[in-house]
């Protein structure tokens, strides 16, 4: 794997928290193999918000779920690619407030165990510990899920368990990932703690153990552990500006409004201060007024925790407000990725141009919206051609013969033959407007 000059330049700007390399996830169906995600490449930098936009069925959710291996297999088939994740921890010299060592990000990466920081193949010459989320063991992945990488789902009504109180759902995160700290907060010496208590702090006690725990020598410690977890839950809920967290803790999801449920989800996701937050259409089920509040909240918390966010949405106007950089997906591939301002002011790929023109605004005459004609192509065993060629106003012979690759154009990357002449055949041309 060679490093292009552009890439190395970017890594000095902000270190990469995660990189998706040539991700391909297919699905088996009666009609054939559906190429839902077919060669997706992008990077997520520390502390930034990356918007991932595209229409229904373009593979954005599958890409997001692949980070935590949440795509059901089968019917899913992991074909190839890797998702590289570089865990980070608070900078030791400033404690997270930002200093020159951590280039004011507040976090530094773990040192790569294979090369000791000098740079090797495994860490892509970054010197940082690099995990391939698609290859590590399920046990290691459990350590990362909800702890280093967290996810917010689209419909908070479905993502929360209706049978558990808010308290137990949020506390689960702490029991799973912060059991030692819970023990310490409960006044138990972690190194010499009874296995009964350590298992309790991991929420792994069996019925018989629970009976033992309710007896005098352990009872006070057990109660202290529960109290420590409750305090953390209340603090997490309070951080998402839920009024009266102590009362909300004992409620069940159906007793809360949609906006409130989404706040609980955010509290759960940010509970362990993750390096990367994946938000999969977090506001689609909400009203605009609530949506605006939730977005303000996410960006506020992001500023405080310095978390990188992958924000997935079909709503371009929203992504423009939220994201620092934007990746546009179409039919399982990324067609354009770059700085949000650049993409929204001067889209390079015909699909991005089409999408932006299709949004109703004041500048278009009624009935003259520039709709993209046609529909998204079937993703069953696609031909090696540009996926957008069938709907593209500029398509030419070469677009049907081979797939354009995602290559740099200025500061961003575009997958279109207009910007990168094809190796053979006649490429499309476009009248460049200044």
């Amino acid at each position, binding site marked *: 794997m060679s490093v292009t000059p552009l890439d190395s330049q970017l890594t000095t700007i902000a270190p990469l928290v995660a990189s998706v390399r040539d991700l391909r996830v297919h699905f088996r169906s009666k009609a054939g193999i559906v190429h839902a995600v077919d060669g997706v490449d992008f990077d997520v930098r520390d502390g930034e918000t990356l918007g991932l936009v595209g229409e229904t069925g373009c593979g954005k959710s599958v890409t997001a779920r692949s980070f935590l291996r949440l795509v059901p297999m089968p019917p899913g088939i992991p074909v190839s690619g890797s998702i590289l994740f570089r865990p980070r921890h608070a900078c030791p010299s400033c404690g997270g407030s930002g200093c020159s060592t951590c280039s004011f990000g507040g976090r530094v990466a773990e040192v790569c165990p294979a090369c000791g920081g000098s740079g090797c193949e495994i860490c892509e010459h970054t010197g940082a510990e690099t995990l391939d989320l698609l290859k590590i063991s399920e046990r290691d992945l459990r350590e990362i899920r909800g702890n280093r990488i967290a996810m917010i789902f689209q419909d908070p009504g479905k993502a929360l368990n209706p049978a558990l109180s808010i308290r137990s759902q949020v506390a689960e995160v702490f029991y799973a990932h912060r059991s030692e700290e819970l023990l310490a907060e409960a006044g138990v010496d972690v190194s010499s703690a009874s296995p009964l208590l350590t298992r309790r702090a991991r929420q792994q006690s069996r019925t018989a153990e629970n009976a033992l725990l309710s007896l005098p020598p352990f009872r006070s410690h057990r109660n202290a552990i529960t109290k420590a977890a409750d305090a953390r839950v209340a603090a997490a809920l309070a951080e998402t500006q839920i009024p009266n967290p102590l009362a909300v803790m004992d409620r069940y999801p159906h007793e809360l*409004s949609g906006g409130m449920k989404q706040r609980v989800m955010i509290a759960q996701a940010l509970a362990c201060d993750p390096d990367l937050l994946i938000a999969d259409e977090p506001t689609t089920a909400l*009203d*605009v*007024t609530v949506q605006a*509040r939730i977005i*303000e909240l996410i960006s506020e918390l992001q500023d405080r925790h310095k978390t990188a966010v992958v924000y997935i949405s079909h709503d371009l106007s929203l992504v423009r407000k939220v994201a620092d950089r934007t990746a546009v997906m179409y039919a399982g591939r990324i067609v354009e990725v770059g700085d949000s301002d650049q993409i929204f002011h001067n889209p390079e790929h015909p699909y991005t141009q089409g999408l932006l023109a*299709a949004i*109703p*605004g004041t500048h278009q005459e009624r009935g003259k919206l520039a709709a993209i004609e046609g529909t998204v192509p079937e993703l069953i065993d696609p031909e090696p051609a540009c996926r957008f060629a069938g709907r593209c106003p500029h398509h030419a012979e070469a677009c049907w013969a081979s797939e354009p690759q995602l290559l740099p154009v200025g500061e961003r990357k575009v997958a279109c033959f207009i910007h990168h002449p094809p190796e053979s055949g006649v490429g499309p041309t476009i009248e460049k407007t200044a």
Partner: protein
Amino acid sequence: MVTQADQRTVMAVRDLKKHFPIKEGALQRVAGHVRAVDGVSFDLQRGETLGLVGESGCGKTTLGRVLAGLEPATSGGVFFDISAPQRSELDSALIGGDNASDFDNGHRVDRLAGEEWRRYRRNTQMVFQDSFSSLNPRHLVSDIVGRPLKVHKEASGSTLIERTVELLEQVGLGRQHLYRYPHQFSGGQRQRISIARALALDPELVILDEPTSALDVSVQAQILNLLHELQQQRSLTFLFITHDLSVVRHMADRIAVMYLGRIVEEASTNDLFAGPKHPYTDALLRANPDLTDDDEGFRGLEGTVPDPARPPQGCRFHTRCVYATTDCGWEIDDVVLQLEDTPALFDRLADVERRSAFDADLRFDDESSAAGLASALQADDVPGPMKAALDQVSVHGQTVSIRFREVPEVQLTQRGPDRQAACVLDGLPE
């Protein structure tokens, strides 16, 4: 050129209410009513598009369904196809003290029968939001689109098929789609089928209930273009119900903003977007992410929509309004709403005796709790206007008597030509 006199109003709605009973217990006793639509009036002129916007649960879909004749109204009148003189007669009768529920000039849709009723039904069609559930999965497209023609005995046999094909072609589909089932189509195509069905009988008025909110933006643009084209060809009247302000700004000539069952502002699209006169409209505009605007002022709205079974007094929006004044209808319920997050304040509350929505006695189990509430009402986190609206707070032992200034329900008032808003303020502060 049509003159003012012979301009017909496709639909005139006067003080329309739709309440749904809340039933409780084994005997299904009616415990109250959800006031989904609570006193709505407007006119729909031929050929115009009226946008109806609001948050979920504000009653916009219910209003659409009542107008389409799918739900009976609880009270008030819906008048179909009336001339300008008839409309002024109606309005003068209502101003003269007549109840909208009693006025009948032969155009009230709930009193129509026979041929007149059929004329109303065929001229008022609806396109629903979810094309999955609004198209019968076991019927072929030819049945779905041809059914209205058959029911109204417009066509049969081969003419029915030809008319159906014609309709499909108008919405961008074709003969090859006749014998397919709804599941074989994409979301955009299914919405086209719904539109073809609605247009089959050449209606005057089409009620579009969130026709594009389930669609992607590129397909949405196709459908919006199609709707506009059809409106031009057939001089249709649209009632466009949506929560998407960008869409309604693009499509509508006039916009009515609904909140909790009532219209809070009605204005032409340009006027409304240029400067909202109601704080709720302002909040909606600020929360709407827009490609063209700057990020300045993008902000959400605190709180949740109140319970429509017990809408707030005065202005229904005062519980969430940032511009609220003392005259906005502060009431006993607001005491609980504002202070419920204060720990242990209401733990010892024993009984509430209401004399009206503005006046009540709260009895506690001990005197300190009563005194605690009285002092909490004067704390800094209680909104200033609410404190100012308090006429009386007195503690007698375990009882706190609270009385607020009584305020009538805030009504829509004229704000210039063709513009109404229901707010106590003349204009919003900058």
